[in-house]
């Protein structure tokens, strides 16, 4: 089925879905990562030069690091109590594992594409980089070749009219400059 038929608000309870939040294992994992972040952030706080007449610039970061560490531990403990062995709830079954895994990878590719878009925005210019980025994003949502060409052209045209002509914002011209 072509996802071009989908609307942003559409939904179907029987469709395969990505793992949702809320399981004990998820809480233990996210709490563990937060604990590491708290330790790293706290270590950074200790390097901020001390100020005569505390609380100085390091006071708030140190307080937040301690608070985050405490919260992370509470989340981990809650996750263990909640049954850390249990997997994430909401794993779809009707669509098969392949669909779920394929869907699970797409956000990371989209994130990578966004970073690449940022990197190429000035060297390639607004038109070429936006064509490529919106073209890639379109390919994530539809397999229709005509749409894969038409949508990026439409996006570039509308954004050029809006930013350059309506708001008068200067956009990088890059290779076309």
């Amino acid at each position, binding site marked *: *089925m072509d*996802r*071009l*038929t*989908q*609307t*942003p*608000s*559409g*939904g*179907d309870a029987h*469709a395969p*879905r*990505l*793992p949702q*939040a809320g399981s004990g294992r998820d809480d233990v*994992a*996210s709490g563990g990562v937060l604990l590491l972040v708290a330790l790293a*952030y706290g270590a950074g706080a200790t390097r*901020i*030069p001390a*100020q005569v*007449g*505390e*609380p*100085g*610039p*390091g006071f*708030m*970061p140190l307080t*937040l690091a301690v*608070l*985050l560490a405490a*919260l992370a531990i509470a*989340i981990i403990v809650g996750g263990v109590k909640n049954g850390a062995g249990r997997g994430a709830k909401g794993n*779809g079954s009707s*669509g098969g594992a392949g*669909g*779920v895994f394929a*869907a699970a990878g*797409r*956000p990371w590719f989209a*994130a990578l594409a*966004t970073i690449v878009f*940022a*990197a190429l*925005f*000035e060297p390639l210019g607004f038109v070429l980089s936006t064509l490529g980025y*919106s073209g890639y*994003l*379109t390919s*994530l*949502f539809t397999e229709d070749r005509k749409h894969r060409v038409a*949508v*990026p052209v439409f*996006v570039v045209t509308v*954004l050029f009219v809006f*930013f350059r002509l309506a708001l*008068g*914002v200067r956009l990088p011209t890059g290779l076309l400059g």
Partner: protein
Amino acid sequence: MTPDLLLSPELLPFLVGGVLLGIMVGAVPGLTATLAISLLLPLTFQLATAPAIVMMTGIFTGGIYGGSIAAIILRIPGTPASAMTMLDGHAMAQGGRTGLAIALATFSSFVGGVFGGVVLVLFAPQLARVALTFQSPEMFALVVLALVAVATVSPESLLKGTTATVIGLMLATVGIDRLVPVPRYTFTSVDLLVGVPLIPVVIGLFAVAELLHQSGEPAHRGDAPEVGSGRLAALWREVRSVGVGVWVKSPVIGTLVGALPGAGAAMAAFLSYSEAKRSSDAPERFGSGVAEGIVAPESANNAMTGGAFIPMLALGIPGDAVTAVILGGLVMHGVTPGPQLFDQGSVLLGPLFGAYFWSYVLILIFGLALIPLFVRITRIPRAMLFPFIGALAVISAFTSEGTTFAMYLTAAVGVLGFVLRRYGYPLIPVLLGLILGPMLESNFRRSMILSEGDPSVFLRSPVAAVLLLAAAAFPLLVLRRRNSAARP
């Protein structure tokens, strides 16, 4: 004296243009009324003072209202102030009631805006003097209350709401310290010296994170939401279903917060939503598309616009970022805000107050008339909508800061938002932590320095003590309600 609120006909086109531009810009995630007025400021030099003031006022009010449209339709707040509207507004849209959600937001904006305007006209000098009594301890206590309220009322767990708030506060510590010139967590990056910019974070947290979330949603056929018939009748039913308390309290909160220098529309909406949920008979329904969840933040953040004018006009102190830019525009046009402005009569206050009130009438007319157009956006296929949103969001981040660093930041925050959402952490407290973090820290440290390290300074002020007491009681009340609701 009370200024003449009738707007002369030759000023009306400037107001219509300003309101429409404000709505359009506010509805685009990443573009704010501040940006629109900044871009427009050079243009107003060609205009006389009155049309310039009228147009800026229209952009301001239109921009604050316009933020709710993207929040409802796309689950991406057009401005930080509409983040709370997103919760119930988008839930209502997903339930096939997009038109009703926008109509409610429009009507609430009208009510809040008019209320803020009445207070502005009648009590501006008096309220400005009260606002000035809020010193560092009182501001610190107010920020604590706002942070606790939002962390507590998050639909996710209290623990995760608090964690998300702390993450936002951590982001706010990046950059050169405000009181002592010491860089913190800048990693030798010049771009981070001024701190984490707000707009790329808003875009990343909501637009990019939504894009990433949607791209991971496997194929399924979507049901286009219904527009619904009998819009005005349905609107009136919903308006009546909302308790009088919400209709009264929310604009009052918005106006008072607006009158406090630096507090801003986001805090007004956050506080108002939290209070509406706290005092509701069915708080568990918030977030599922209830009318109160739209009325409270929208009437508050639009009432804030009236409140924000109070310290700006009466004292020359801007209430938030937009009024700071408007203040600059007024000064450039030879208007000197201050108490004498009210004493001198209505030569300039008349067009400003008139524009303010009439802008909300226009918002009501345009908002209701354009609902079919807004609803049509929800029917655009994802394959067209999300590539557009993705490109628009990242380019908006670039235009807001003028650097590609903002684009990288947007992408990084988008990944953070996506991961937090997937693991059940609410995103709005992250935003609130980032917005209020600098106020929290600087007011706390300033209070401690002035009191020579004596923490009782926060209890010696009756206002601060009451606010801190409310902050302490808030989670207890909410938890008690949750527990009693969970009991069979």
